[in-house]
């Protein structure tokens, strides 16, 4: 009964405050970690190949990264809720083709409508995923693994042998991905804003926090009366919609769209998310982190080209980073738990 003698704890007493700081520090460390790696990597590359930091190249990297960052945003929302969406690549592909065709056939069409179309297409497929997972009670892994192939199959059926080529668009569609403001691509700016918005929503709206809650402890979430079905459905719908928009950007960026657009992107996206510090078990991680993860992978990727290193290394590096990231996270969270428990215990005495 030593505890009986313990006086009521004062607010911000060293123990509790420091345990809070520790927790925060660790998670910060996690995101700073990625930034650090990014910086170091850029530094090294630039040292070997100064032109890596040339405006044009930075522009190239940013634009390529935006598409992945966007996909990572959607994927993060899903992963946070302890699910996974493997179908993003296929959704991107089908949306890219359909919107590209729209852009090449209906010339008068205002751009926003094209994006709206992409959004709608993605939303549709996302909703299907969401329904299958939340109502069908089938693990998202299997559902999205299946829809990954089904949607790609649809895509191939629709596209057939045809393709959309840059010449057919009205110019403004292609310039979306080329326009810059003060050297920074509009696209990067817009996506950055979107991601910031996403981060803000996840942090300061109930529904966002509930997603974290669901991922962190589904049973508790249930007992707290959180409408899990609806939330998870929304998560998948959002992920799909975002992939749809990404499809439009893809079309505008690469011009030529056939039935293979976005094939096997899902792995890179998940890699980006996990490298970005989003726990694969859900409950923790941030959209910003995921975006940085995407940027990191994209930077590595293009650095290889610039350095003239065979791009063959790209995939191995991505896979390796992913493994390192999850192993790291595992140890960090174990450590954190233990040390927090120690503090609590000590305080408890």
């Amino acid at each position, binding site marked *: *009964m030593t*505890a009986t003698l313990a006086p009521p704890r004062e*607010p911000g007493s060293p123990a509790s405050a420091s345990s809070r700081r520790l927790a925060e520090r660790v998670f910060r460390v996690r995101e700073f970690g990625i930034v650090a790696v990014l910086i170091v990597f850029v530094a090294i590359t630039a040292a070997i190949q100064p032109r890596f930091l040339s405006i044009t190249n930075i522009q190239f990297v940013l634009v390529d990264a935006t598409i992945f960052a966007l996909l990572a945003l959607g994927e993060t929302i899903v992963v946070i809720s302890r699910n996974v969406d493997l179908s993003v690549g296929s959704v991107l592909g089908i949306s890219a083709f359909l919107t590209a065709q729209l852009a090449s056939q209906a010339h008068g069409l205002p751009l926003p409508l094209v994006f709206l179309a992409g959004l709608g297409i993605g939303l549709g497929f996302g909703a299907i995923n969401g329904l299958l997972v939340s109502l069908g009670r089938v693990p998202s892994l299997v559902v999205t693994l299946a829809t990954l192939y089904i949607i790609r199959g649809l895509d191939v059926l629709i596209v057939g042998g045809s393709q959309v080529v840059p010449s057919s668009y009205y110019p403004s569609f292609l310039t979306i991905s080329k326009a810059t403001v003060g050297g920074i691509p509009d696209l990067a700016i817009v996506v950055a804003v979107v991601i910031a918005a996403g981060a803000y929503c996840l942090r300061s709206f109930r529904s966002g926090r*509930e997603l974290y*809650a669901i991922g962190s402890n589904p049973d508790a979430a249930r*007992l707290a*009366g959180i409408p899990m079905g609806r939330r998870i459905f929304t998560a998948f719908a959002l992920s799909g919609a975002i992939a749809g928009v990404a499809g439009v950007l893809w079309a505008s960026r690469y011009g030529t769209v056939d039935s293979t657009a976005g094939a096997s992107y899902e792995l890179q996206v998940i890699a980006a998310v996990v490298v970005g510090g989003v726990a694969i078990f859900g*409950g923790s991680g941030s959209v910003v982190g995921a975006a940085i993860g995407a940027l990191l992978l994209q930077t590595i990727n293009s650095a290889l080209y610039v350095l003239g290193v065979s791009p063959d290394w790209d995939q191995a590096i991505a896979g390796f980073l992913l493994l390192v990231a999850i192993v790291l996270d595992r140890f960090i969270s174990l450590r954190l738990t*233990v040390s927090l428990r120690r503090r609590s215990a000590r305080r408890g005495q």
Partner: protein
Amino acid sequence: MGHADEAGDRRADARPGDARPGDAGRQEAGRQEAGRQEAGRQEAGRQEAGRQEPVRRAGSEDGAGSEDGADSPAVLSLRHVSKSFGAVRAVIDGSIELRAGEVHALVGENGAGKSTMVKILAGVHQPDSGTVLVNGGPTVLHGPAGAIGAGLAIIYQEPTLFPDLSVAENIFMGRQPLRRGRRIDGREMTTEADALFARLGVRIDPGRIARGLSIADQQLVEIAKALSLDARVIVMDEPTAALSAVEVARLFDVIRALRAGGTAVLFISHRLEEVFAICQTVTVMRDGRHVLTSTLTGLTAGDLVRAMVGRDMPERIPGERGAPGEVRLTVQRLTREGVFTDVSFEVRAGEIVALSGLVGAGRSEVARAVFGIDRYDAGAVTAGGRKLRKASPTAAMTAGIGLVPEDRRQQGLVMEMSIQQNVALASLSALRRAGIIRASAEHSFAADWAVRLSVKYGRLTDPVSMLSGGNQQKVVLAKWLGRRPSILIVDEPTRGIDVGTKADVHNLLDRLAGEGIAILMISSELPEVLRLADRILVMREGRLVAEFTQADGSEEGIMAAATGQLEAEAR
């Protein structure tokens, strides 16, 4: 989840016989109460759910109500609810009425059905029969959300927190204070959380994440959560289990305040002195049935215990055991940080040593460490003269240890497998020839043990999940006896099984000890402990705090040691 749920909500033994007239022959207020209840219960027992009872009980409840919170209407009540899980009837006939401005105690042995009642109140379970009434009107609570909507706040026995989220968010999840634009007002949330903790007289940093909070702090967060709901009814399922005396005192102040504010509180606790300290009314349950509802004034702890146990302490029927033989199991200064500390004891051949204490005192954890499920930070385990390798069940098994775990469903059995396969699971290597399991051998092995333990089953190939709790437990026992262990650890061996089987298990343990097996028994059922054990070790908050011999052991004494409230007991 998947943790061992509150002792044996699974238990479902109707025992009409054992109500003794003596029950009625007791203290003032308690008297006719109990008497009528006993009578009623017997009938109930004879004919499943005694439907003729309401009249009587209505009477009794008025009696209860007249004392306190006078004629205030029942804000929430359960009438004759029953709930079964598989073959197990957790609640057979449960009734309770919660009134505004009244703190109502719900007591009963482990497995009396308390937690299931709570889960029915919480809308987690729908009763198989019986009614839930809110403000006197029959209602169906659709899930936890429905219950919350009906103004219920529940503090579950096992804290249900979000480890990755901040304490404040854990408290306000789904109800966070909002600013303009429906955005969460973090600052407001923190201040409100601080205010709640201030009410509880503790200071937990609302900004830290819940991961790594001590059990006590987790419990406090749960309490804060319940308070934040401003609920009309607050159900507290063992809220004090992990709290220090100071924290308990503060909690009681809060409860009194709530009561004054007209909140109805349902208070569940093993610590009877707490019940007397804070509650006005008590409902006793036994074996899934309502036994007694009464005002507490005039009742004594002894009355409640008798009502809970349904009999006086049985004096030990000495098993035909000789004097204990040589030491089989030695545990030296075993320590696992934050779980149990410096635990030492030994068990001799032919001896039953009981490890007693409150749920969460660290008894099962010691057993797990000894068997090698968990690793330990310090100390040593010696079995059959050999020091065991840490965290290796295989080593423990080869040293002749068997463990019948606490949670039959999660730890004891592979539910999808057949009876036969479960019995054979720990002895497969013995049943194979040329690496292949001999079906015939497996079958006869299983059949043999099924007979020895008189397991009641249809086909040995039936899935074990079809058996009743008692027979499932026998299967688990058979699994380990099949290995001919020299040391047997049984964790809550009779949790949630019917009286008949319970007796079987008791006799079996007696016999095994007689055959010279060293038995370490963990049980929350003091009668059982007192009946079977040669020595009784009591744990509290991870430490061994007392040892009784079979002779000087008493239910009160053990309870006192277990709760650390020595002065509080006896009276």
